[in-house]
């Protein structure tokens, strides 16, 4: 078993006031060490639920989630998370926001080392000189960069990104894609990224998984034939356009599976 993240036939049903709401109905996913998988699918199909399962914040009703050969039964410090909302703590400086996970994961680490590590990451994403600023002084893109640093500061094995660039404008988003590639080559991790942006998915990931409408199953998997760092121009090649076309087609099928969701 060489997959670092191994999700086997996972099922999950939420118990709500209105009754049972099946969200995941047999999701399979395998990510090798150092791999980067993008998950796309119709709105509300349970993509975020999937990330919470990997992070150990939720337990599946059936099926298993394994990380590095260990069954996930609760949260682990070897996971880092970043969300669409950067959720920076406004009362802390940018530097103190980034060191937050270290306070929990490595409470004994000397402060100087924590700061050193945070500064190194901030420099990597282009936030050098902003360490002592308040989050409210940063732009949306910068906040997201800081949030990315926070999710990586404790050197997690697994990085979970839940639509990290979803709220940014198109140009800022492309900047962050390139930052993300740089980060990936300097700070190795195994990643799962939820996204609604198909171009983002093929630009960053090695593999794109299409989830069906709710209750979700793994509907389609696409290997991205590109290796290593990519150039934005790649997205405008016939090869890319063909991949995007196929993914679009699969999403349409996914929306069709659950007619209530199709119009959304």
């Amino acid at each position, binding site marked *: 078993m060489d997959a670092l993240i191994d999700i086997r036939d996972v099922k999950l049903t939420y118990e709500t006031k209105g009754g049972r709401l099946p969200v995941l109905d047999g999701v399979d996913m395998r990510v090798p060490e150092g791999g980067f998988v993008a998950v796309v699918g119709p709105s509300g199909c349970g993509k975020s639920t999937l990330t919470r399962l990997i992070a150990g914040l939720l337990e599946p009703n059936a099926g298993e989630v394994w990380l590095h050969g260990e069954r996930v039964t609760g949260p682990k410090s070897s996971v880092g998370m970043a969300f669409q909302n950067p959720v920076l703590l*406004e009362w802390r400086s940018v530097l103190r926001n980034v060191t937050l996970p270290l306070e929990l994961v490595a409470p004994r680490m000397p402060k100087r080392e924590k700061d050193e590590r945070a500064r190194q990451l901030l420099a990597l994403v282009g936030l050098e000189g902003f360490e002592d600023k308040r989050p409210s002084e940063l732009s949306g893109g910068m906040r997201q960069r800081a949030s990315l640093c*926070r999710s990586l500061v404790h050197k997690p094995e697994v990085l979970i990104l839940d639509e990290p660039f979803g709220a940014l404008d198109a140009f800022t988003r492309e900047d962050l894609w390139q930052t993300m590639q740089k980060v990936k080559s300097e700070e190795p991790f195994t990643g799962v990224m939820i996204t609604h942006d198909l171009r983002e998915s093929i630009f960053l990931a090695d593999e794109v998984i299409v989830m069906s409408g709710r209750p979700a199953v793994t509907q389609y998997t696409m290997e991205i034939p590109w290796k290593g760092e990519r150039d934005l121009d790649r997205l405008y090649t016939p090869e890319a356009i063909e991949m995007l076309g196929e993914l679009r087609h699969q999403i349409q099928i996914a929306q069709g599976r659950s007619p209530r969701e199709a119009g959304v």
Partner: protein
Amino acid sequence: MNWRIFAPLIALVVFCLLWEALVWVNDWPNYKMASPSDLGPAFWKFRWLFLEYGWDTLWRTVAGLLLSVFVGLLLGMIMGLNRTMRDALYPLLVGFNAIPKATVVPIIALLFVGAHDMNTILIAFLISFFPIAVSVSIGLSTLEPEYRDILASLGASRFTIFWKIALPKTLPEFFGSLKVAVTLAFIGTNLMEIVEPHGRGLGHLFDSGKISADYPLMFAVLIALAALGILLYYVVVVLERTFAGWAERSPT
């Protein structure tokens, strides 16, 4: 020249002039309405009582307020972190808050006859803990799940999440409610001081003025109360700047 200091001072002077003019134009006797120029002699005549009773009123109010902060935070935490407790306690709290505190004053006064300090502090507390409890509970219960997840995904305990995220994030709401509570606590203190016989404090001085038909004294007490209220309010503002100054955005 610093306009942040001068502007309120000028406003105060203009207010006093208008007040003086109002009394003068209507030719009101001072038993109808005392004018600012009557206040000076009244303050001077009772200067030691003002100092002594002013101190009584101040420390009782602060003590009541501290009790409010403690109980309000506790109730707010219980209701903010636990859905069932919130459902259970909210109607009780709202009902209690709806009772006019003037009606509670005689009950308390009869319950602990003669314990002036305790009775006064108790009313100041009873009237002022509600906004603190409500705003803290709202602050805690509306915490976005992502805030919890950034620490929960690292295996943090509920207490750690509360201490590092939920509590500091609620501070702006807490201080907002504390500003309301300060004024309420003052009202509570004086309600009790006015009603209790043989009491102390500015409320009692007001009552003495009423009994001896010393109208300038009554107005002087009101002004002294206003001054104390402003003082305490700004103490809270300074605390807010110190502990929750991050919530204030510089205009850009």
